[in-house]
């Protein structure tokens, strides 16, 4: 039981660290943050329940005023934009990614993890973020897709692929590190 609590806290810290480690970027030159990739990893590595809890802890710490989002952002203000749907969607993204990882028992880890990361980090996430945007701005689907999906999609596809590789790398380095497959 202690192990669960500790691993959740540490992976929440890992999400934060991915945005705060100096000189670490996902793709050279392009300002894509690695943090939403951390969300996907919480799901693919820890599984649905622990992954979601880790993300919730992370969001709580952002909300109480720690500058954990890439760029040193944090506090309640980040929940005040119409894009806050992404933040609210993060725990669901991790949960969905974890669920796919747990249920789809193929041995092709890069494929499963990549699909899980995409299913959670793109599928589930945008299903919440886009309607939230529409609600927050009283706008139609076309505007929401342009302003809330289009700018982020390419980066998120890249992150899902990388999350797949990272999860596979973990499985290769240490097979029992994938708690989602324990």
């Amino acid at each position, binding site marked *: 039981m202690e192990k669960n609590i500790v691993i959740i806290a540490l992976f929440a810290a890992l999400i934060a660290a991915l945005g705060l480690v100096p000189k670490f970027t996902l793709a050279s030159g392009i300002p894509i943050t690695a943090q939403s990739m951390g969300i996907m990893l919480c799901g693919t590595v820890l599984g649905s329940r622990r992954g979601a809890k880790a993300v919730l802890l992370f969001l709580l710490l952002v909300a109480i005023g720690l500058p954990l989002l890439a760029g040193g952002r944090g506090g309640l203000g980040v929940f005040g934009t119409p894009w806050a749907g992404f933040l609210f969607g993060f725990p669901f993204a991790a949960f969905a990614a974890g669920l796919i990882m747990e249920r789809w028992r193929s041995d092709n880890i890069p494929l499963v993890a990549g699909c899980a990361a995409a299913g959670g980090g793109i599928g589930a996430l945008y299903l919440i973020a886009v309607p939230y945007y529409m609600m927050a701005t009283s706008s139609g689907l076309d505007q929401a897709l342009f302003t809330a999906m289009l700018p982020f999609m390419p980066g998120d596809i890249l992150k899902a692929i990388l999350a797949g590789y990272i999860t596979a790398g973990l499985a290769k*380095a*240490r097979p029992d590190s994938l708690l989602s497959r324990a």
Partner: protein
Amino acid sequence: MGQLISNNGQVSIQGVSLVKSGHAILNEITLDLSTPRIGFVGRNGSGKSTLARVVCGLIKPDQGRVLVDDIDIFKNRRKALSKIGILFQNPDHQIIFPTVLEEMSFGLTQQGYSKDAVRQMVAEALAQFGKAAWSNRSISTLSQGQRHLVCLMSVLAMQPAVIVLDEPFTGLDRPITRQLTQILEDIDQTILHISHDLEALCTYDRVIWLERGTVQMDGAPQAVLPAYSAAMDAIGGQDVFADITG
């Protein structure tokens, strides 16, 4: 282990200064390092590790520059990779890849060698240490001492002219430390060795004592080491915790 061409690199540290959060971590350090074996001693926080990273081009100094064999290792990263390598304290903070082969191939691939050449060079490096069987081994199956060796082999495979050792034997038991020390004794490269283990530095050509970002003493180990040792003992007799600022 005789080699026709000496790989003894020359390091020139010129007026290097670095300030962080208002503190001077390194204070106008100027050193010309040309002997094959040079030791660095100093308390934790004296700036040794930071200097090591500046010398390798991993941290940019606020002032000054470092030349290794006349190459500015911060401005010319490409050439610098072939000139100077570094070994950290903890191999778990240095090894990036899951297998020995991948870890050792990384630097060589980045240097631009072809796939076949890389495979060849890694095989040669492993054979040199009698570890050909390690090629496909997973890092997680190796002990701490073995992981240190993997890091060392990875650095040596890139054939640098200078190797920086940042307290690389911390936490290892005596037999392993002796083995790794023995290996290092035989290599041709210039070694800059930061260490708390004064015994290891006795046979070195030169020892530099760093204190609060400046050179406190610089000379033969017979002169510097006893002086440093005495100073450390004196501090040990005082209340070291009184120094902590809130």
